[in-house]
């Protein structure tokens, strides 16, 4: 019955990450607690005339070792790097969930794994081959590597997902939209289980040139909310959750990590790069209302916090708009200060940071925050994380184009 379906609660039973500061959830969370920086000297390809020479890259990632046990997907090791990240993060999340995949009814599972840009690195290689090296053909797997849905397809094949399988694409809100849509599918009874999140790997010469031309990258580091902030730092990685209906998780005796309580989204519909206060405010407000919570119920907010001049001041205004006076008491941090800006994957990685903060009673810091920027006057947990009981956590994702999406996590249902 429709009324029963509308009441379905959605819980998180598994999570997986691949980030520059850790390629498992444990490693990543330990680094977050220590305030470790994942920003390093750019490398791995000829830097030629690049002016920005730093990034948050995942170095020494052994994809073959991490994917060799895949059984159903035989070619993921030949896929684009962004699919490797998705495969590894999904694998960790599914293992943590304890789910037997494929499900007995594989049509009751979904795999929604987005990517802001898909296989851009493959694209560049293919075009270099054709236009510079005058090769007669691209590698035969080029097309399959590039398409933005290949990570979702690879993961769906490996875990035998036969229900809705596709990618979302909304720049820096990609993972958050994927997780939100998966939540809705489970809540509405379309599926019982979903693997959801996003993956990104775009750091190459062409991408660096394109970002450089937009003049929003910092040559020094990612310092959200700081006076010295002068742009973001490109990152890469994946963040993926296993979501389940509460009934499904309970029936199989699963360990429930958190409840996905609320999801809100709103579009600025105004400008490609200049954000509004209204769009992010409405998205946060909707997520709160969807969760049935008041602003004061949230203890930790993982900010979008990109360290661009515009985002950080605008996000601060939007937080004040929604949380009013309580905004000054709310613990807020941008973990991008540590793992860089992994674009579409950001919301997935940051969702994991929120859930770990709740589990661990510890909120991660915004590192590099020696002096707050003008108009950035909230508690951004500067430089060192701290113990804090977190019952409810919010994760913000605000993308180019004004595409805003917000998640609210709560404790496992009693």
């Amino acid at each position, binding site marked *: 019955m429709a009324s029963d379906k509308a009441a379905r609660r959605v819980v998180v039973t598994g999570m997986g990450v691949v980030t520059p500061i850790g390629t498992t959830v444990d490693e990543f969370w330990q680094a977050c607690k220590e305030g470790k920086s994942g920003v390093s000297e750019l490398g791995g390809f000829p830097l030629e005339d690049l002016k920005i020479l730093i990034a948050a890259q995942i170095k020494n990632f052994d994809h073959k070792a991490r994917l060799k046990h895949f059984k159903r997907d*035989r*070619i993921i090791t030949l896929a684009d790097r962004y699919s490797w990240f998705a495969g590894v993060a999904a694998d960790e999340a599914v293992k943590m969930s304890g789910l037997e995949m494929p499900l007995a009814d594989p049509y009751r599972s979904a795999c929604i794994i987005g990517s802001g840009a898909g296989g851009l690195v493959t694209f560049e290689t293919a075009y270099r081959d054709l236009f510079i090296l005058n090769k*007669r*053909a691209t*590698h*035969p*797997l080029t097309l*399959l590597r590039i398409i933005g849905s290949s990570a979702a397809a690879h993961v769906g094949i490996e875990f035998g997902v036969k229900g809705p399988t596709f990618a979302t694409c909304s720049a820096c809100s990609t993972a958050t939209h994927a997780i939100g849509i998966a939540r809705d599918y489970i809540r509405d009874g379309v599926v019982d289980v979903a693997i959801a999140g996003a993956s990104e790997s775009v750091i190459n010469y062409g991408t660096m040139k394109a970002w450089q031309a937009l003049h929003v990258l910092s040559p020094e580091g990612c310092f959200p909310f700081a006076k010295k902030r002068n742009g973001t730092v490109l990152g890469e990685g994946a963040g993926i959750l296993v979501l389940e209906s509460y009934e499904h998780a309970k029936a199989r005796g699963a360990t429930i990590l958190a409840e996905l309580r609320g999801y809100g989204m709103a579009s600025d519909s105004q400008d490609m790069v200049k954000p509004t206060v209204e769009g992010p405010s409405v998205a946060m407000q909707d997520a709160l209302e969807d969760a049935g919570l008041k602003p004061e119920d949230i203890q930790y907010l993982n900010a979008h916090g990109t360290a661009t001049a515009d985002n950080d001041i605008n996000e601060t205004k939007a937080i004040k708009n929604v949380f009013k006076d309580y905004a000054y008491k709310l613990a807020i941090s941008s973990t991008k200060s540590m793992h860089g800006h992994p674009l579409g994957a950001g919301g997935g990685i940051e969702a994991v940071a929120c859930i770990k903060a709740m589990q661990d009673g510890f909120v991660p810091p915004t590192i590099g925050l020696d002096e707050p920027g003008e108009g950035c006057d909230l508690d951004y947990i500067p430089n060192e994380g701290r113990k804090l009981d977190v019952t409810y956590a919010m994760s913000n994702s605000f993308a180019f184009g004004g595409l805003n999406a917000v998640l609210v996590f709560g404790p496992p249902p009693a």
Partner: protein
Amino acid sequence: MDEVATKIIDILKKHMKEPRDDISLDTALTDLKIESLDLAMIVFDIEDGFGIEIPYNANEEVEAFKTVGSVVDRVKSLIAAKAGSAAKA
């Protein structure tokens, strides 16, 4: 087996999940568990290895790709055609 056949069998083995040593000209590609995506990569390597272009459409049943021997024959005829057109030029 001649040089062309040996080279082609080496390429086939490179793309097999479990390479085996009993491949003959009569072996059917389906017996080698070579599927359409593998075939695309095999064609790519053969083209690179012999400097030829193999007209091949994965949507069509291609007789030339039924057995190892039929691939070898096809490649030999393409090499000969290329040599012929080069001689004329």
